[in-house]
């Protein structure tokens, strides 16, 4: 099984072959690794790679996993290559949709539709967990629309502002 993988800004190919029930060969960009992989509880696995031992927490995401290793948590986005390598195409240009990065309440709007904003300009203030956080423009542009309303509670991912 071949995967297109995005990890820490890299794009690589990873091919997985099962040799026995717990032993796999993973070829990452041409380099083979022999991996003894065992599940240790529902969200954890123990990996041995050429004698090196790693304890991994495997957090499932929509598009892959966040792998918790002792030194860091590493997001791995992956997709079976057979279905077309779409993984790398995500960062398209076009209008920027600013969405709620957390559940919370919209406290104040700082822009309105039609307004020009600089990159980093404040767009609105959200409150969550007793802190007010200013959401800023990811890039310069014109505010196409403002979906957020003051005082409204929003869920993660809710569309707030579109910048074109």
């Amino acid at each position, binding site marked *: *099984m071949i*995967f297109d*993988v995005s*990890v*820490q800004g*890299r794009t*690589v190919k*990873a091919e*997985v072959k*099962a040799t026995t029930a717990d032993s796999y060969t*993973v070829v990452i960009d041409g*380099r083979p*690794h022999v*991996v003894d*992989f065992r*599940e240790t509880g*529902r*969200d954890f*696995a123990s*990996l041995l*790679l050429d004698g090196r031992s*790693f304890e*991994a*927490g*495997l*957090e*499932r*995401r*929509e598009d*892959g*996993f*966040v*792998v918790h*290793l*002792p*030194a860091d948590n*590493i997001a*791995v986005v992956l997709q*079976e290559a057979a279905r077309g390598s779409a993984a790398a195409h995500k960062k398209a240009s076009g209008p*920027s*949709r*600013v*969405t709620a*990065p*957390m*559940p919370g309440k919209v*406290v104040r709007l700082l822009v309105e539709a039609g307004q020009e904003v600089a990159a*980093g300009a404040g*767009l609105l203030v959200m409150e969550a*967990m*007793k*802190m*007010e956080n*200013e*959401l*800023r*423009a*990811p890039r310069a542009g014109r505010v196409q629309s403002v979906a957020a309303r003051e005082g409204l509670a929003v869920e*993660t991912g809710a569309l707030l*502002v579109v910048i074109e």
Partner: protein
Amino acid sequence: MNLKKILIANRGEIAVRVIRACRELGIPSVAVYSEADRLALHVRRADEAYEIGPAPSRESYLRMDRILDVAKRCGADAIHPGYGFLSENAAFARACEEAGITFIGPRAETIQAMGEKTSARRIAVEAGVPVVPGTLHPVASDEEIRREASRIGFPLMLKAAAGGGGKGLRLVPHADDLATAVDRARSEAKSAFGDDSVYLEKAVLKPRHIEIQVMADAHGNAIHLYERECTIQRRHQKVIEESPSPFLTPELRERMGSLAVALVKKVGYVNAGTLEFLVDKDREPYFLEMNTRLQVEHPVTEMVTNLDLVKLQIRVAQGERLPITQEDVRQTGHAIECRVYAEDPERGFLPSPGRIAALRVPGGPGVRDDSGVYEGYDVPIHYDPMISKLVAWGRTREDAIGRMRRAVSEYKVLGIQTTLPFFERVMRHPDFLAGDFDTSFVDVAFRRHEVVREAPWEVAVAAAAIQAFRDRKARRGALSQSAGAAPVSGWRVRGWREGAGGRL
């Protein structure tokens, strides 16, 4: 007088901390909880638990009437307020006194005098304790704020008079930023403390935040339990604390301890309290404020002094004399606390509430985890994002750092973002290892100097690819031998998208 039953007027890890002390002493404990907190750990751990209102603090944890009502109904003869919420509310302490319930903290009049920051600054000035230049009274009108600001000069700090924990606190670099900062600070102060008055202080450049823990009984005995170094902050809120401070000389430590005890004795302080100081780069201390309550970071003091502050609070509240004198208090070894927040350090410490899908906590020697959560718990959006305090002790600062690094590597929180990866990096940062940092550490030094680590990304890719392979095989029914592994109930979806912005 022995207390019969203690109500804890708080939630989260500090409520669990107090409940543990009660259980160890054999005193029954009573939890109160908001509608959002029925499943919170403090409810599960207490001997009794009663609901006191809807999720917003104003309608539950800040409702004195409901809390006192519960206390009376269940026969609690004492209330521990924890920190935050009603812990520094003089009216609440007074209402307890009037209801014949022991408030585990200072007397109401002391809370009023020392808890209100401008009043505490005046008292400190009278007692000869140096303070940062600024207003000695809360400033009401925007006009007066502008006048005082130009008198003091920029940069300056805007602070909630009733505040604490970094809320309602703003650095104002220039006169241009003043109006916005005042609005923001007032709004936060109002929502956090029900009081929007603010005051102004000159900003001390490259300061260290160092505080002195004190403990006093009702018989006139007062001691200090040395200092805590609290310089590492994000958004003016502490994230890492330690004791001893790598910055203090023995002389300065002695001097600050004596200043603290003098001030405490002057106001007839009773129970636990903390005097916060700024220390500038010339090692001059300035008294900032007094917290008339237990502090989040009390465990570092407990670990270096081998004392249990909550048990001491309870004993003092029972009218007992302090069982130790200043000479008995020793600073042994070194302790570091890391506050584990449900926040994403990669995105400007943005809050990250949600379900904790899996949790593994560190153990072994010299490690203490004061947690308020559990596997399967939904971290709510309504309250402070701190989920745990991880504390490590060692004989030396180097030992303590090695232990903290090890503990962080064992600590796994799946399902939400936490500050743990941030601590992993801090514990390797050369400036932190050298003890060379000021309050700008997180914002400036840390970003500039990215720590180079071996990032075993290939291992992450191998793990993810194999798990994906197994999931797909399992779904296709081809992998019949994966008996031990229960199928996962669902994909965990959290769509972080562009637009979360840089410096939130």
